[in-house]
């Protein structure tokens, strides 16, 4: 955390607390918007019919049993046609490193220390650009036509607060007061009142972009992380021990607290058995290898693919990419590490979906709250900027550049930040209309004023 700014870590902590507690924001910075979703009820329950531990938000007065029933019905009805996966690069990813303007004479002047050497990963649609050497997986995806690149996406007069700018992206409007996410409003329009898995946050907390006004959505805390190991216990003894957990839970007795603890012990035992197929160590039954890492990110996407393969009724999914992109200092190493695992994992996810025959059903959007200042700072890093990079991945994407790279000579604003050539709300409107087949005007404020981009082939 040493190289991220104070505002960033504080806002991350605040956001976590708020999304969990719904307790409102402290008045540390007047004008800082409250994240979408604040104030929604959170209720944990077990969806026994599918064996997932989920927290459900915005479910109103529905009883857990009713929600179970709803999930069972949604399961019976079959999977959703299309799935949208929204992946957030937290902190403001440096687009000028991810897809760097090797052929722009200004680049080396603005980045005397941080300018990258030619990686050889040429971006054929604009040969000034090169992929970061750690993002070779993106080069592969792009050359296969499965990655559309938005080299300068954002909005005019970009706000340089992590908190505010991320909020704008999440709610799909530059409105600090909006309390629902853009995907949440979409689900409010087309969703079902009894399927919380239609909007799933894989980060454990509710993703604000999924915050609804009325339809239930869920936060999943690690379908692949419900194993019960004990130090110094293995083999046959471990198997007997796990059986004994069920025995401890099934004893009778009249004391209410003891009976409650036994019931939870028994439920936990059942849930462990149900989730065994999704266990990390079992590899989620993934047909392709994912990068090995201590991070949750590869497991989250491997688990997502296995849940889609199992026919779970997921429709909109949100999670954070691996890495901390608020690279105010010592950018080179941190950025390379984050980009490497993120891009390799996304390639593995695409290959997984292809192998499972699901690739035509899934579109993945990768975004960050802003890009970074074109000129490097004095501590081997970069400060907050304006426009940044966006990616659309999938077998049905057009695979071409959307908007252009404006160049560093004429493409910077008065603050020295990259100007947007595509508004992020144009991306949202296009995804809503072309991928999710809904009227964007019902979801995105002033949708008419944003150009539509051809995103599918």
């Amino acid at each position, binding site marked *: 955390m040493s190289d991220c700014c104070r505002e960033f870590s*504080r806002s991350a*902590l*605040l956001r976590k*607390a*708020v999304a*969990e*507690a*719904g*307790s*409102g*924001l*402290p*008045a*540390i910075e007047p004008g800082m918007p409250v994240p979408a979703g604040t104030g929604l009820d959170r209720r*944990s*329950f*077990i969806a026994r019919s599918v064996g997932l*531990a989920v927290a459900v938000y915005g479910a109103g007065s529905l009883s857990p049993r009713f929600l179970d029933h709803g999930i069972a019905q949604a399961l019976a009805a079959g999977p959703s046609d299309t799935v949208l996966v929204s992946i957030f690069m937290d902190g403001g990813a440096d687009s000028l490193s991810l897809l760097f303007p090797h052929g722009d004479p200004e680049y080396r002047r603005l980045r005397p220390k941080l300018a990258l050497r030619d990686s050889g990963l040429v971006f054929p649609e604009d040969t000034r650009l090169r992929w970061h050497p750690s993002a070779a997986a993106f080069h592969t995806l792009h050359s296969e036509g499965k990655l559309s690149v938005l080299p300068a996406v954002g909005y005019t007069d970009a706000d340089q607060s992590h908190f505010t700018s991320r909020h704008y992206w999440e709610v799909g409007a530059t409105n600090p007061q909006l309390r629902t996410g853009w995907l949440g409003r979409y689900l409010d329009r087309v969703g079902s009142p009894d399927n919380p898995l239609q909007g799933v946050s894989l980060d454990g907390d509710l993703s604000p972009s999924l915050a609804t006004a009325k339809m239930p959505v869920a936060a999943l*805390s690690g379908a692949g992380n*419900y194993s*019960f*190991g*004990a*130090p*110094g*216990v*293995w*083999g*046959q*003894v*471990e198997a*007997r*021990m796990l*059986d*004994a*957990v069920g*025995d*401890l*839970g099934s*004893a*009778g*007795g009249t*004391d*209410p*607290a*003891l009976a*409650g*603890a*036994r019931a*939870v*012990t028994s*439920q*936990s035992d059942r*849930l462990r058995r149900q989730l065994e197929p999704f266990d990390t160590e079992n590899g989620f039954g993934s047909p392709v290898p994912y990068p090995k890492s201590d991070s949750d990110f590869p497991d989250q996407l491997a688990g997502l693919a296995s849940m889609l393969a199992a026919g779970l009724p997921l429709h909109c999914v949100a999670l954070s990419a691996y890495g901390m992109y608020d690279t105010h200092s010592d950018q080179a190493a941190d950025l390379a590490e984050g980009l490497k695992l993120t891009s390799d994992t996304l390639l593995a996810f695409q290959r997984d979906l292809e192998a499972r025959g699901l690739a035509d059903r899934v579109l993945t959007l990768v975004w960050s709250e802003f890009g970074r200042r074109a000129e490097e700072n004095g501590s081997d890093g970069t400060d907050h900027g304006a426009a940044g990079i966006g990616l659309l991945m999938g077998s049905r994407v057009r695979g071409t550049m959307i908007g252009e790279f404006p160049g560093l000579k004429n493409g910077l604003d008065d603050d020295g930040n990259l100007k947007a050539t595509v508004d992020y709300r144009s991306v949202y409107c296009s995804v809503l209309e072309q991928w999710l087949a809904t009227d964007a005007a019902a979801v995105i404020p002033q949708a008419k004023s944003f150009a539509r981009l051809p995103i599918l082939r």
Partner: protein
Amino acid sequence: LSAARKVPVYRGRFGPAEAERLLWRAGFGPRPGEAERLAKKGLDGAVHSLTRAKRERLVGPAPVDDDKHSIAPTDAWGHDHLWWLDRMVRTSRPLVERMALVWHDWFATSNAGVGSQRLMLKQNRLFRSRGLGSFEQLLLSVTKDPAMLLWLSGTDNEKGSPNENYGREMMELFTLGANRGYTERDVREQARALTGFRSDWDDDRGPVNFRYDRERHDPGRKRIFGKRGKFDWQDACRLCVRHPNHRSFFVRKLWSYFIPTPPSAATRGALERLYVRNDFAIRPVVEAILKHPRLYSGPRMVKSPVVYIAGMLRATGRGIDTEAWTWLANQAGQQLFYPPNVAGWDDDRWLDTASFHARWNLAGRVLRPYVLKTSAAAPLDPDKLLERALAFWGGPALTSETQRALKSFATRALADADRSWKRTQYPPLVENALRHLIAISPDLQTS
């Protein structure tokens, strides 16, 4: 007739099992041998040794982080939690820490809104020093406490633009209960009475210099609970404590921290009289609750995650030596200084499948340094292994159902030892597993 008006006192046997329950409800469980020693004091002696403990001694190794450095409670994330957990584990005055935990939940203030571990720890000292004194004094101290002033907008509440946040919660959550004898007008007038607190902003340190500023106070007449006067913040506190509905709120809420089922009408009435007669002193009410028959003969209570983990550390004699206690407690649903909202933690919701998993991992983390290697000598005998594993945890009382399940596990696991190497290696594995199963058994999740 006068005897009937007194709070009932437990008259049954006060042995190690009763002393063990008392140590869990009024503290963080026994150290090895502590329940037996406490039982010898008898009920009165045992309760008074908790409620009137003299000086504090800290027993055991000082807290360190994963790198074996001293913890930094005001600076490093999560070290505030470690600091308090250490007090719970090492203190010789467990009830003082337990009462501080009660007040932390009662006046639930979260660092998510305060943003300063220093101010949270300052508030924590208040709960420790005033936790058994006068509730009125406690309320007065909390009202001007900087963390509370930040948390419930006390410093935003000024003459001309009152902020009702604290005034409302003082009535609803701290003294009277929702819709129990106050009106919206009372809330607004209360907010006016509470005006006057302020702080300054320091770019490096945040809010500093908390103080009462007459210029910001609304000196006009107010009407609260039908009484008229030029009330200020101290009047606001006293009006709430002296409100006829406060005593029943206080007794019912305080009782709920120690005994899971509500008191009978007679007990409640007697406790209320005790409370008022002693000028709103907390200690006599706590003593009466700790001597009440329902504590010993009534149903069990689920231990909160922090009580659960502090208890395991006390039982094993292990000190604070890893930051894992913070994030594991968070996963189990109770990170100190971060209650979920101003109403505190929900004591009916401690256990679910996610928090059970976290408790399982907590137990494993506690056990890690004590793991028996496969080369350790252990008897190939289920009864003896169970006895040894129970002794590891200080011999807690288990229900017969749980004992049966544990013994059945040990018997089956040892029966798998069909080779000579298994007959030497399995017993220590089974003993490790028994320790784990005891720790997560329904019996040890409750007290």
